[in-house]
């Protein structure tokens, strides 16, 4: 009879492409949490999150903001004495939460990521101005004004593109992406 994989097994499967050791080898030393430059902003430190995964606390893990704070600096990964790819784990959890749509309403990280991917699949290159609407509306007045000030300065210095860049063989590029993930009419 088939058995349903536990949450910790599910996460391990998601990390199949990672080259580190399995999460169950974690000894809870906390080197990752001590190294992480944004640990203070997370609701659970990386060490704690790994413990929670190993304890199969699925809901609590998916509700956590920890992985959306990870900036992929890989400092935890290179320091882990058990050679677990912790930054790779954070990527896996981001993918899992986008795939299952378990992230909280209004979260900027997942919406930004999805918009970014769609914009690249449309043109082949990234273009900052189309990304702004994914986050600018969540800003308060002061943040908005600060951002507008930065954008104006960039414009004045000639550092913002006016037209979206586009690769030449875009049709082939789209066909290529479609062979990996069929996207209907895309």
């Amino acid at each position, binding site marked *: 009879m088939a058995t349903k994989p536990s949450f910790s097994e599910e996460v391990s499967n998601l990390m199949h492409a990672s080259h580190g050791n399995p999460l169950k080898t974690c000894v809870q030393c906390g080197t990752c949490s001590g190294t992480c430059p944004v640990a203070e902003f997370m609701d659970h430190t990386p060490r704690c999150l790994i413990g929670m995964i190993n304890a199969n606390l699925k809901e609590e893990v998916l509700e956590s903001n920890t992985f959306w704070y990870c900036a992929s600096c890989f400092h935890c990964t290179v320091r882990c004495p058990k050679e677990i790819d912790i930054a790779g784990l954070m990527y896996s959890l981001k993918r899992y939460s986008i795939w299952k749509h378990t992230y909280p309403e209004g979260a900027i990280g997942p919406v930004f990521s999805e918009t970014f991917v769609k914009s690249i699949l449309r043109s082949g290159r990234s273009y900052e101005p189309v990304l702004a609407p994914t986050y600018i509306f969540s800003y308060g007045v002061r943040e908005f004004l600060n951002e507008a000030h930065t954008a104006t300065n960039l414009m004045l210095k000639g550092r913002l593109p006016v037209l979206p860049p586009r690769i030449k063989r875009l049709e082939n590029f789209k066909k290529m992406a479609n062979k990996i*993930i069929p996207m209907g009419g895309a």
Partner: protein
Amino acid sequence: MRTYSYFPGCSLEKMAMSYHQSAMQTTNKIGVELKEIEDWNCCGATTYFHVDELLAYTLVARNLAIAEKMGHDLVAPCSACYKNTYFGSAYLKEDQDLSDHINYALEADNLHYSGSIEVKHLMEVFVDDVGLEEIKSKITHPLEGLRVAPYYGCQIVRPRKDHEDVENPQFFEDLMSTVGADPVDFTYRLRCCGGSLIITSREAALSLVRDLLQSAVYSDADVIATACPLCQTNLECYQMTVNREFGTDFSIPIMYFTQLLGLSMGLPPKKLGIGTEFVSADRILTFAKEKV
């Protein structure tokens, strides 16, 4: 003449054009030719890997395949492009199934990646391939007395690619010494700039930028040198925002290592894209004095 397939990446098209200009000028001085990869696409940055890893590596593979067709090793000036492309190439070389699957997709653009090229960061070309001795022979305007904070950031050194020293690298300091400057003891030289958190988790990113600027100021640096367009943007374009949010008073220029290199080679500042920064680099220019 050394020739490379050059992958500038999206940032260098506009936001970090000065990095592109100074890379072109300085490589030209040392007999290195950067041939832009024809019709390259985005490397996927960090965000693409949040959504789908296989598709992200397919994007990377397209650039690799075109670079391979051109017949040269690939060089990327952006640390994120470099990291994605380096590992994409490594995974394709060691995993036949992955390579078969991705090459099947690449057929749509009449491409194939067989894994015959190496992937390098632009700084590696200077430090390892050309070498510091050779560079030294081109320095006509040593930046004597200039206190530089060499900012490695993350992805140029992490994750570990080979057996390199990820805790205490020295290549950036060595390069800065070669141009005649004084690399300062910069405590946060390997700490993260926040990357794309500047958009998704602004408060966290701004505090990282503040800590980095503070660390450079503590070490009495005149300038922070970077090797990544995202580090440069976060430290520079958000420096005024940090000042407003935290009540600080930072005013430290953030320059690409290629700009400092260019000044020490006597290249005109304008050709190195100097003048498009938010925090003026004018006072740095005075350090470039002709050797007597």
